[in-house]
C-alpha cells in the first residue's frame, strides 16, 4: 500500500519535472526568438558596469606614456573622411571665428578665455594616424595642432589631477585620464589634411587622441577643465567603456 503511493508520487513528480523542463526549454527558445535577452536586466547591467570599471583600471595599467600610436605615409590619408556625430552634418555647430572663446575651468591657474588667434599662435605638430571607431570601422587621417600637454602647461593646469574634461558647442561632453592628456600625440587639432578643420569635422578644433577610440576625440570643443572628480562622458554615461584606450 505504502509502496504504491510512493510510486504514484514518484510518477507525478516525474511528470512535473518533465513539464518544467519542457517549459524551461520553450521559454529559452522564446527568449532567443524574440531577442529579449537578459542584457537589459538591472542586475546584469550592474555586473557589466562593474566589469567596465575593472577594464578602466586594466587599461590604465596597460597604457604606456611613451608608446606612440603607429603613423602612416601621406599616401594613406583618407581625404573624404567619414562624418560621425549624432546629428546630420548640416546641423553641425557653425562657430564664428571672431566670437569663439575657449573657456577654461577647474584646477587651472590662468582661466582667461582664449581667442582663436591666440590658439593659432601656439606651436603646432602634424600626425598621420588611424582613427578607430567603437563600431569597428577605421580610417587614416592627417591632423595638425597643438599638443594638449603644451597647452595645459601654458595655462598652469594641475598636471597631477586625475582628469581632463571637455564640453562642446553641440552639447557633447567627455573626459580623459591625465596620462593620456599628457601623451605626446594628444593634440588640439585645428587642421585636417592641411586645411582648417571644416565645421563638420569640429571647427575650430577637435581633440585628436590616437591612443583612444574615436568617440573619445571631442569636436567643437568650447571648454577644457581639469578635475579630480570623474566627469564621465556622453556615450560613457550610456554604458560605453570610459577609458576606451587603443
Amino acid at each position: 500500500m505504502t509502496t504504491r503511493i510512493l510510486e504514484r508520487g514518484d510518477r507525478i513528480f516525474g511528470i512535473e519535472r518533465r513539464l518544467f523542463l519542457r517549459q524551461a526549454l520553450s521559454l529559452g527558445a522564446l527568449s532567443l526568438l524574440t531577442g529579449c535577452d537578459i542584457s537589459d536586466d538591472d542586475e546584469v547591467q550592474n555586473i557589466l558596469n562593474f566589469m567596465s570599471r575593472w577594464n578602466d583600471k586594466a587599461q590604465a595599467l596597460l597604457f604606456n606614456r611613451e608608446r606612440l600610436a603607429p603613423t602612416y605615409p601621406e599616401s594613406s590619408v583618407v581625404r573624404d573622411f567619414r562624418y560621425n556625430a549624432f546629428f546630420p552634418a548640416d546641423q553641425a555647430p557653425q562657430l564664428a571665428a571672431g566670437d569663439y572663446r575657449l573657456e577654461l575651468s577647474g584646477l587651472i591657474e590662468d582661466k582667461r578665455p582664449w581667442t582663436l588667434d591666440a590658439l593659432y599662435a601656439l606651436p603646432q605638430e602634424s600626425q598621420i594616424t588611424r582613427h578607430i571607431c567603437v563600431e569597428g570601422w577605421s580610417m587614416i587621417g592627417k591632423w595638425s595642432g597643438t599638443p594638449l600637454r603644451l597647452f595645459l602647461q601654458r595655462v598652469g593646469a594641475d598636471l597631477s589631477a586625475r582628469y581632463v574634461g571637455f564640453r562642446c558647442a553641440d552639447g557633447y561632453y567627455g573626459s580623459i585620464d591625465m596620462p593620456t592628456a599628457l601623451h605626446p600625440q594628444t593634440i588640439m587639432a585645428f587642421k585636417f589634411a592641411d586645411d582648417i578643420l571644416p565645421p563638420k569635422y569640429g571647427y575650430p578644433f577637435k581633440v585628436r587622441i590616437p591612443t583612444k577610440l574615436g568617440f573619445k576625440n571631442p569636436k567643437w570643443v568650447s571648454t577644457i577643465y581639469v578635475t579630480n572628480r570623474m566627469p564621465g562622458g556622453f556615450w560613457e554615461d550610456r554604458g560605453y567603456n570610459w577609458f576606451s584606450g587603443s
Partner: protein
Amino acid sequence: MTMLAKESPKASNPVATPRDGQRHPLLRRITHWLSALAILIMIGSGWRIYNYYPVLPGGFQFPPAYTLGGDYTTSEALHNEDGLASALGWHFAGMWLLALSFAIYVIYGLASGHFRRDFLPIRPSALLRDFFDALRGRLEHRLGHYNTVQKAFYWGVMFAILIMILSGLSIWKPVQFQELTWLFGGYEVARVVHFVGMAAIVGFLVVHVVLTILVPKTFVAITIGRASSPGRQRRADGELR
C-alpha cells in the same frame, strides 16, 4: 582516458567484456564549462558588435535574435542607446572569463598528461583513415576513446581559441600591442582573422554538439565526472571491435 576494466556481470558471456569508460577530474569539468559559457557570451556579443560594421562583403548581418546585447528598443528606452554598449560590455567581461578558464584548462591539460595521453599521437595515416571512415559514417564513437579526427579537432579548436585571444588583443589594443597587431597584418586584417576564427569555433561547436547527442554519455562524463558503457569484444588480434 583509461579503460575501466570491470568484469561484465553477465555470467553467460564467455569472454570478459571490458567496459568503455570516461572520467573527467573536477578542475577539467569546471574549466570546460566555464570556457563553454565564455565562448557563447563571446559569440553572441561578437555577432552584435559585428552587425554595426560587417566584415563580410555584401554586409551580411547576424539575426539580432541570436545576438547578445539586449532588445534594440528596450535598450534605447533604458540606456539611450540601441544595444552596442551592452554587447561590448558582455564581450569585454567575457574575455576575462574565457582567458582565465581557457588558460587553466590548457595548463591543467598539459600538466596532468591528459593532452599527451588522449590527444596524442596524431599519425597522418590514422588521421586519413579515420577522416574517410567519418565521412562514410563508419567511424565508431566509443566512450573514453579518442579517434584521430577527434584528437586533431581538439588541438584545432584550442589553436582557434588562442588565435581569437591574440587577434582580439590586437583589435582591442592596436597601439599598446602594436607588434601583435602588425603580426596579424594590421588592424583591418586582424578583424578578418577574428571573424574567421569565430567561424572555425562555431563549426567545431556544431560537430561537437552533434557528436555529444550521438554519444550522450560523454555529456554525463564532462558534467558529473564519470560515465561508462558496455565495451566491445576483443578480436583475436587484440584490436577492439
